[in-house]
């Protein structure tokens, strides 16, 4: 009897503490959303009121009127999608190569690719800046894809290699015996099995690319190529702060990620766990 009470008491503490913790963690995001639907005066009033008195859609409506915001969204989307696809493709087949073949410099090449993400972004800023100008791709989305690859490619190679390592080689051997070429075996057998891994790493890659700030702000100058993160950061320079407007922009910038992340969450966590525990 006493044991039962102890167990439920323990449960209560665990659930209680976790809930409080979770609420504290989520609160800043909730506050952000609230600030995007309340009039500025209400958001900034002191003492702050948790329950909104008045709701307004004015900031979201304003978003639609400013064409720059639309461009930011489009650019973020294009850059992230292209970077992710490029890195999944190049990284995926490289992962296959590293996993299934014993290459003489295999170890060295693999470590080099992984080391790429350890390089501080600041250190790459200046060389990339020079490259951007000399190739005349400064202020283009292409440049951002190029720059983002530096940290997206390594994670793709790493996680996908760990994933492919886990697929038993007998499957391909069986296909080869049946007369299929290695490439056919790759496509028909390996690829379907790697799909969950691709989704997991792909989501992570997309997320990191979408949220990237430093390269985006350093290599762009006009809404032609500026991304959402740059748009949000412009807020910090201004004197007159449109809190409502910027919160609306931030919410819009974050919502796609939230949705994608929650849908593919399981795969992402699986991928991260698998890749890191190697």
């Amino acid at each position: 009897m006493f044991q039962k009470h102890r167990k439920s008491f323990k449960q209560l503490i665990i659930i209680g503490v976790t809930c409080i913790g979770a609420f504290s963690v989520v609160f800043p995001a909730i506050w952000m959303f609230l600030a995007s639907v309340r009039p500025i005066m209400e958001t900034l009033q002191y003492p702050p009121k948790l329950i909104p008195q008045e709701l307004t859609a004015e900031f979201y409506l304003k978003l639609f009127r400013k064409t720059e915001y639309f461009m930011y969204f489009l650019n973020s989307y294009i850059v992230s999608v292209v970077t992710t696809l490029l890195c999944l493709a190049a990284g995926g087949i490289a992962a296959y190569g590293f996993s299934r073949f014993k290459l003489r410099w295999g170890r060295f090449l693999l470590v080099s690719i992984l080391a790429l993400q350890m390089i501080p972004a600041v250190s790459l800023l200046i060389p990339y800046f020079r490259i951007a100008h000399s190739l005349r791709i400064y202020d283009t989305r292409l440049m951002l894809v190029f720059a983002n690859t530096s940290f997206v490619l390594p994670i793709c190679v790493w996680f996908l290699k760990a994933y492919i390592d886990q697929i038993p080689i007998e499957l391909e051997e069986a296909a080869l015996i049946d007369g299929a070429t290695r490439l056919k075996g790759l496509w028909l057998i390996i690829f379907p099995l790697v799909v969950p891994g691709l989704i997991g790493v792909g989501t992570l890659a997309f997320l990191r690319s979408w949220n990237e700030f430093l390269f985006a702000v350093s290599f762009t100058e006009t809404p032609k190529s500026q991304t959402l993160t740059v748009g949000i950061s412009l807020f910090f320079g201004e004197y007159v702060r449109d809190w409502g407007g910027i919160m609306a922009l931030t919410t819009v910038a974050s919502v796609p990620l939230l949705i994608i992340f929650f849908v593919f969450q399981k795969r992402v966590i699986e991928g991260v766990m698998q890749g890191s525990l190697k």
Partner: protein
Amino acid sequence: MRNLTQKKQYLQGYLYVSPAVILLILIGIYPLADLVVLSFHRIRADKPLEFVGLLHFIYVFKDKWFWNSFKADLIFTAFTLILHLVLGMGFALLLNERWVSTTLRNLMRSIIIMPWVFSTAASALIWTLLLHPFGILNFLAKVLFNIGPIDFLSGPWLAMFSLVSTNVWMSFPFFMVLILSGLQSIPVELYEAARVDGAGPFKRFVYITIPQLRTLLGYLVIIDTIGTLSQVDLPRLLTGGGPSRFTETLPYHINRMGLLSGNIAYGAALSVVMLIFVVAIIGTIMKAVIQKE
């Protein structure tokens, strides 16, 4: 490589690996080489690169603002790392326990991971609002501790506190997810045996949990240290280097001195110094972790 089939296999392997390697050269090796070369030169108004040897490097080591940013970076990273470990471990332990309802637990887990989704710009923005003189944190400070409205970005240590808090909020989920997965791979029998031997929860934690997680924690410490040391975004956006450049961490210092001020060659030299620093840190931590084995 004796026979033809082996050689063919070999070449095939390289073929698969080649696109990634080409990218590696284009976005990694070539730029780094360019960086190093640039750091030994100076760019003058009359175009050509002028070789100046170690000029920039000597200046770097004599510059008090360089050392200031170095110190700021270390402080920032140390506090962030500690909080990452504490929060990550804390939440992971809570989520690792057996819950009455697994759906509730998974829901909690999803909620706690959420800050991961926000960009540095978004996080800086959200926290600027929270830290506002009329904001929630000030309100709590008044209600709980009866302190007047604080400008969280006005004092050096206050600004550092704000910076660290925002950074930890934004990035601790990564820690938590990995620690949780590590916890879940610890065999339950170890705990059972310890419980039979009469070890309390604290002893079980110190003598079983920590040693089992040792490699994972080592890996996390390396990744996190380098990541935090290299961060430009938050100091740049949230505090702008803080009052009197107290929160001007090394990467932000490099960004300011290099690209933002147009002095590219000097920035290159600073970048090289930072690179060496990062490599040294990796080496030191790896040695410490390996020696413990």
